[in-house]
């Protein structure tokens, strides 16, 4: 049975790893001492000197292959076999007992004393012994099961051999899964343990050495052992022994292998196979670990000289092959055939987590910086206030200054330090941990490419197999541990976030604590009811309280000469726009006469529209407007083609307005705007002849105009306004003064007209302000009105009137609030609705 049979399919790397381990670690099994009968039959194996313990795993696997095909139960006489069977079982139980005892000694006499003594932190006892306690537990359970199964203590010698074999096989089968888990971990850890042990032989670990020797001395009385290494290797040796012992047991069976009725044979076979599986698994785990260890360092910093020294023909060839493959892969020409969906998913998770952690750190840094900035600004403010107050510093200013200083210099720094220490540093080190897996992921991809390359250019089968092995090992290891890594990383992130929140809360609490006394010193303490109301409300109440306070202070400032007229704190649009209802509103521009003029000049009459309702702009690109404001429509849609919003010009700026509030405008309509302003309108202008002619014209038009059919829905433009004739010219696109000069006979009148106009614009502005403030036009109706145009009632609700009639106003709007129809009464006590603009105020009766 040649040694190469087992590893014929193995790859070079593996062999290399083995050699390294064999030489580097100096890890030999001194002598595998098997006992009497065992030795005789299996001399071919046992007489060989094991170079390396893990080779024995492979050998075992190979042996089982051969054994299953070639080996037949040994021919011999029945009695001999009967004895042998019991003998082997006895052997099995006895050695298990010995093994358990050894393990217990290791735990109780070496590990525990070492753990109890306070050694320097560098001594990692846990790694040294691995999960030896699990081994102990497993072994005792196995022993117990074996003893029970074979009635070892009572009727063992009377038991039927067949039954015994069957039972032993069953016991092993039932223990396989635990065995795999326990020994996998132990064997994987064993290498590290040996390395550590070597490290501890150094001078610096003298304390450890002394203690160890002390322990070993105490142990020597009980068992024959040289050093800790020989204790630690015992479980590794033990796991190898099970299959051999079972094999031996199998040989005592006289049955033909193909006898289906023979349960014991098959259960034993199964147990043996499972044990080989275990050995294989352990071997595979180890191999993967070695690979991972080898490639993990890939990304870590390597000196250039190292790199060059590593350069060889082989690696150059490999790398160049990979580059071309990588290129074709990147360009999408060649998609890899081997796609592991599960791996891809895990890799994505991994990358997401990495990105999240990275961003969290960055953002958190930025946030801390910003917070610091804000706080230092607040401190600066406190200092400036102190500056301002100079010698007259009030208690509050002093205390505020003090509190802010405390907040910024102590609390904030403390918060920052703690955040850095408890949140940032774990996350940063987590982030650093991403490097290893990343290197492995890269390497896995490289190996995948190698493998595919081999598949495509059929090299030797061996080479392909080797590439496949490496790729699969890496893939498996990543599949195995990457999800764990992600899960742990995620939990870590979550925990850090928890701490982060906690720290923030503490910080806020401390700040509140230091500021609360300052607040209580102030006159206003509106925050006593915080929590019962919405937070929005609180801020508003703070602002309201502030305004009330400030009003008291600046009330009489208006009388100061040095305080300019513009210093009017509460009518400023800046303050008004900050009310939370209008988050986007711009400064509400009141349309000036000039704007109107430009609009009238700029746009054709069909493009002039008036607003019929006030609008608060929902966003910055929208216009605000008030009722009757004039707009030039530039485009009857918005950039998205939505016809419900039109691009409009209010003379000063452009923006969007909902089309539903726009109605076509004409100049007369604009006149209405003026008509509502209730000046002593045409009265002073009437004398002019031209004025009269205009008067006549308007009258003509008024006859043609249709009268609205209903009170409520009368559209504005259908009215021919009446009281505005005098102003008609002024709104035409010519300078106002000339319009009036035509109408006025002498300078004196012109002066009056000008002043009226000036007043008009001021009043107008006032009124528009009123509109916005109170919503409804505050028409203050004079009691008596003179009818300017005849009006014939169409229904009983309306009142027929003649030119020059004097009417008494009862209600300045109709039942539905339409201000265009007024309820009037004539002197015969008849009542009815009359269009408002058919009448003019009777100034002088």
């Amino acid at each position, binding site marked *: 049975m040649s040694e190469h049979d087992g590893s014929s399919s193995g790859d070079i790397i593996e062999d290399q790893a083995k050699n390294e381990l064999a030489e580097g670690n100096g890890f030999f099994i001194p002598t595998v001492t098997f006992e009497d009968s065992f030795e005789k039959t299996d001399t071919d194996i046992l007489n060989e000197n094991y170079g390396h313990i893990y080779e024995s795993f492979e050998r075992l696997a190979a042996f089982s292959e051969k054994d299953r095909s070639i080996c037949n139960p040994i021919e011999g006489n029945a009695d001999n076999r009967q004895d042998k069977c019991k003998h082997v079982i006895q052997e099995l139980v006895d050695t298990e007992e010995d093994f358990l005892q050894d393990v217990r000694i290791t735990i109780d006499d070496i590990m525990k004393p070492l753990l109890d003594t306070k050694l320097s932190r560098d001594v990692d006892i846990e790694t040294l012994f691995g999960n030896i306690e699990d081994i102990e537990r497993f072994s005792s359970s196995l022993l117990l099961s074996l003893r029970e199964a074979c009635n070892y203590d009572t009727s063992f010698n009377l038991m039927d051999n067949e039954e015994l074999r069957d039972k032993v096989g069953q016991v092993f089968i039932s223990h396989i899964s635990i065995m795999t888990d326990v020994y996998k971990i132990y064997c994987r850890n064993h290498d590290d343990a040996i390395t550590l042990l070597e490290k501890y032989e150094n001078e610096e670990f003298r304390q450890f050495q002394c203690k160890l020797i002390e322990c070993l001395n105490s142990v020597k009385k009980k068992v024959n052992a040289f050093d800790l290494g020989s204790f630690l290797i015992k479980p590794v040796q033990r796991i190898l022994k099970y299959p051999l012992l079972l094999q031996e047991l199998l040989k005592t069976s006289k049955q033909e292998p193909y006898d289906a009725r023979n349960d014991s044979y098959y259960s034993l076979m199964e147990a043996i196979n499972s044990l080989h599986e275990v050995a294989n698994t352990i071997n595979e785990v180890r191999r993967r670990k070695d690979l991972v260890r080898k490639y993990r360092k890939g990304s870590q910093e390597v000196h250039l000289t190292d790199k060059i020294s590593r350069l060889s023909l082989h690696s150059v060839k490999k790398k160049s092959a990979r580059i071309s493959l990588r290129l074709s892969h990147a360009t999408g020409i060649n998609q890899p055939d081997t796609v592991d969906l599960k791996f891809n998913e895990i890799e994505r998770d991994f990358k997401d987590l990495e990105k*999240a952690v990275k961003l969290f750190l960055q*953002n958190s840094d930025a946030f801390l910086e910003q917070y610091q900035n804000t706080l230092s600004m607040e401190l600066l403010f406190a200092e400036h206030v102190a500056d301002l107050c100079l010698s007259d510093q*009030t208690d509050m200013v002093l205390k505020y200054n003090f509190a802010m200083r405390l907040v910024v210099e102590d609390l904030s720094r403390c918060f920052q330090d703690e955040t850095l220490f408890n949140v940032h540093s774990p996350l940063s080190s987590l982030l650093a941990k991403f490097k290893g897996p990343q290197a492995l992921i890269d390497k896995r991809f490289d190996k995948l490419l190698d493998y595919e390359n081999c598949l495509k250019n059929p090299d030797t089968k061996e080479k392909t197999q080797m590439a496949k092995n490496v790729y699969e090992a890496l893939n498996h290891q990543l599949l195995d541990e990457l999800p764990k890594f992600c899960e742990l990383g995620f939990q870590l992130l979550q*925990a850090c*976030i928890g701490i982060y929140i906690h720290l923030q809360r503490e910080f806020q609490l401390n700040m509140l604590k230091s500021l609360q006394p300052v607040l209580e010193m102030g006159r206003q303490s509106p925050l006593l009811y*915080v929590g019962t109301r919405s937070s929005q409300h609180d801020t508003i109440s703070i602002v309201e309280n502030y305004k009330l306070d400030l009003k008291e202070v600046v009330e009489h400032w208006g009388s100061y000469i040095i305080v300019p007229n513009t210093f009017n704190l509460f009518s400023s649009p800046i303050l008004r726009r900050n009310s939370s209802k209008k988050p986007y509103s711009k400064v509400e521009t009141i349309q000036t006469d000039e704007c109107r003029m430009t609009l009238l000049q700029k746009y054709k009459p069909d493009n002039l529209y008036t607003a019929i309702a006030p609008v608060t702009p929902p966003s910055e690109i929208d216009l605000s407007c008030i009722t009757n404001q004039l707009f030039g429509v530039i485009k009857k849609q918005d950039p998205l083609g939505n016809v419900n919003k039109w691009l409009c010009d209010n003379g000063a700026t452009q923006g969007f307005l909902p089309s539903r509030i726009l109605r076509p405008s004409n100049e007369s309509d604009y006149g209405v705007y003026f008509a509502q302003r209730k000046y002593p309108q045409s009265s002073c202008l009437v004398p002019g002849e031209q004025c009269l002619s205009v008067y006549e014209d308007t009258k003509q038009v008024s006859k043609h105009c249709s009268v609205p059919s209903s009170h409520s829905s009368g559209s504005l433009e259908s009215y021919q306004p009446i009281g505005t004739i005098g102003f008609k010219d002024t709104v035409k696109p010519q300078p106002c003064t000339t319009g009036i000069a035509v109408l006025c006979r002498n300078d004196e009148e012109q002066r009056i007209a000008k002043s009226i106009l000036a007043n008009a614009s001021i009043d107008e502005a006032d009124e528009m302000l009123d509109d916005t403030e109170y919503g409804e036009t505050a028409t203050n109706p004079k009691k008596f009105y003179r009818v300017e145009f005849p009006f014939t009632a169409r229904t009983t609700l309306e009142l027929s009137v003649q030119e020059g009639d004097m009417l008494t106003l009862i209600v300045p709007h109709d039942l539905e609030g339409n201000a265009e129809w007024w309820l009037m009464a004539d002197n015969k006590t008849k009542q009815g609705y009359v269009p408002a603009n058919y009448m003019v105020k009777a100034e002088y009766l």
Partner: protein
Amino acid sequence: MNWNPFYRQPKKSILSKMEERDFERECAKMQQLEESSKKISKTSKKLVVAHHAQGKACGKLGQDLVADLGDDAPPSLESFKYAMNCQHILTVDKGKVLQQVLADPMKKYMTIFPSCTSHIKSRDKALQETNKVQAKLEKYEDKEHTASNSVKIEQIKKSLQPVKEDFQQKHSTLMAEMPTFYDARLSYIRPSLEAVVSVQCWFHKEAIRVLEECSQELGMGTKENAEKHVKTLMQEVNALSITSDD
């Protein structure tokens, strides 16, 4: 008597040195007030900007975290995002309030100073004017008392009267108003200060509420436990074979 030849005897002013000095002092005070309120105004503006930036950073913190972890972000992270978002809104609200109670009023306050300076300037001008006329008058008075000179003196006296009155009026108003205005600075800043403190307290309270809710939803125990948890997790991460242990 002054021996310095370069030191010109100041023209005799209609104001006593005392009065002049008082006025200078008040002016200096105003100047100082202007400077310190300018500082406050600047700081308050920056403060508002800083609040906006802080709020944004806070919001980003939560948003990015959830965005990166994709759809399978667990509810605990969602609640973190929510908390951060709340803080964002709170910070922005705080910034808005600060704008209203601090930045805007300070801006308004600053508009007073140019007007004050212009008043001081016009008073200085009036003073010069008066001094000039006064000097003229004195010149004529020093001359011979001829008939024409007497007429001139009468004329100048007549013209001096309104100039002087104008100056006196300006001077006295300024002297009356500047100290009161200066003193009023305390009462002007006090409401702002109070409002700032209350909005700070309000912010902290709200933030504490939000953070408390979040930490409850995250279901984390004491801080010490969490720290321990972090440590064990870190060790577990290190124990994985795919992570390098150096």
